[in-house]
């Protein structure tokens, strides 16, 4: 956790976020999109958690003999965000199951082709 690591850490997290984002917007397969969305969101969680870290701090569970604690607030926010993430994922997957039943495929370009003929 020296100075060099200070921003480097954020940059790697940004690379992760963008990898997920790329999967979402570049793939035709709907399931792959959801997986990308998952990675994108998880990486944003990593960003938040690194905001909360305090040098020399430990986890915010108060205990005798410990003085400095990391910030609990990002943890709380991210707990909520994780729940939101899994909720979104499950709704997305349920939609995919229905789409597959209705169209017989989960590839976006094929679906557009089928839908275009209606």
């Amino acid at each position, binding site marked *: 956790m020296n100075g060099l690591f200070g921003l480097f850490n954020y940059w790697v997290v940004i690379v992760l*976020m963008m990898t997920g*984002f790329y999967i*979402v*917007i570049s793939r035709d397969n*709907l399931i792959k*999109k959801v997986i990308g*969305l998952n990675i*994108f*969101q998880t990486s*944003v969680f990593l*960003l*938040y958690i690194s*905001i909360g870290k305090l040098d020399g701090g430990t986890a915010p569970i108060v205990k005798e003999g410990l003085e400095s604690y990391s910030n609990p*607030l*990002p943890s709380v*926010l991210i707990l*909520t*965000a994780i729940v*939101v993430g899994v*909720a*979104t994922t499950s*709704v*997305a997957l349920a*939609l*995919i199951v*229905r*789409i597959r039943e*209705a*169209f017989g495929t989960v590839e976006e370009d094929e*679906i557009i082709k089928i*839908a275009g003929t*209606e």
Partner: protein
Amino acid sequence: MIRDQLPALQIVVPLVAAPLCVVLRRRAPVLTFALAVVWSTFAIALALLRQVLADGPLVYALGGWAAPWGIEYRVDALAAFVLMFVSLMGAVTLSYAPRSLTHEIPKDRLHLFVAAFLLCLTGLLGIVITGDLFNVFVFLEISALSSYVLIAMGRDRRALTAAFHYLVLGTIGATFILIGIGLLYMMTGTLNMADMATRITAVMGTRTVLAAFGFLSVGLFIKMALFPLHVWLPNAYSYAPSTVTAFLAATATKVSVYVMLRFVFSVTHVRMDFGYSDLGALTIAFSLAGIFVASTVAIFQNDVKRMLAYSSVAQIGYMVLGISFASVTGLTAAIVHLFNHALMKGGLFLAMGCFALVIGGVRLKDLEGVGRRMPWTTFAWVLGGLSLIGIPGTAGFISKLYLIRAALELDVWPVAALILLSSLLALVYVWRVVEVAYFRPPPEGVERREAPWSMLIPTWALVGASIVFGVWTSGSAGVAARAAELLIGIAP
């Protein structure tokens, strides 16, 4: 005592009602109960609006904790105004729903559908009322998740893909908003909007805050379907069940515009002197492009529902235009248009629902001669259309009037001229429907058959209101002007 608890009741009533619907399960009690709930939510919103207009902004500390630590509600004139019309739309569309729902939703899942509707309403109201930035995200997701599934309930199988498409874009938007909130939190250490407003001045020019602003804006632009990030909207609105389209078209995008207003003016304090800046010019260009492109696309649609959806994209352009003027008149225009557009688009989509129920389709050729078959519904549609164009005497006229005045105040008369010109485009697409409905003969052998009263009354209520508020402007524009003054910070 009830008076003090009004802000909480506004959210708690529909929120508790949703799980109760799931427990009740049986069709008749669920519908009766839900109707009682939405109308009482509207009553609470009205009481809240009265209280705020009389006594000034309200603050309500949830959980009994002081503000930057706990979450608080903050209800000023703008919030109360938006709460009022969102809950009004919820109430009207749900009253309209029972007949068209039995037509569109499988019977054994009706209680779940109603629960999702109430959750969506709760989410939208929750976004408006809260004073905490992260809480906005949470309620945004409640409303978004439920609206995805509400859209997917459409009968056409393309409703599923539309909902999925919306889900992906909506989640990207929400994640962008989350990133923006995170960056702001990093720089200010707080999530409370009022607290952030004071603390952000010290770090205003930093690159982090700038980027945060960018991410929040892009996220919100996706959610409000501003051109060119509107791609999810036309399909979603065309294939969703009619009730859902009417409700979402009247509320969901408006609430995102509201969050934008709140964020730009309450948190980052763009004030009069800041006014017409480069950023403003950029958004003006985008919103004008949106208005023209979307209106032009609307002209070429053969599905009337889809036509109205594109028209919605254009209308969002008007609202953002008003915001980018960053003046009292401009904001008044944006805020009053939130309300007026909700009324007229709600009315128009409800009328579409009547057509869909009786005729079975809403393509232009299905509507041939419908003026004679369903005179009441068609007339309601035409009045809504006139309001959309902005004919004097309708609510749409008031919005455009303020918008043009705001443009002239800033001496950008080309913008004013373009606004007028864009109304002509609206005239063209509305006329296409009128022409088909009144000047083509109905198909052979169909009788005159009107939509049921339970659907006509809500439709007419909204269309009628859009005429009433075209004449009696103190109820809408008056409140909007007060809200705008408060936002800009020149009112006490």
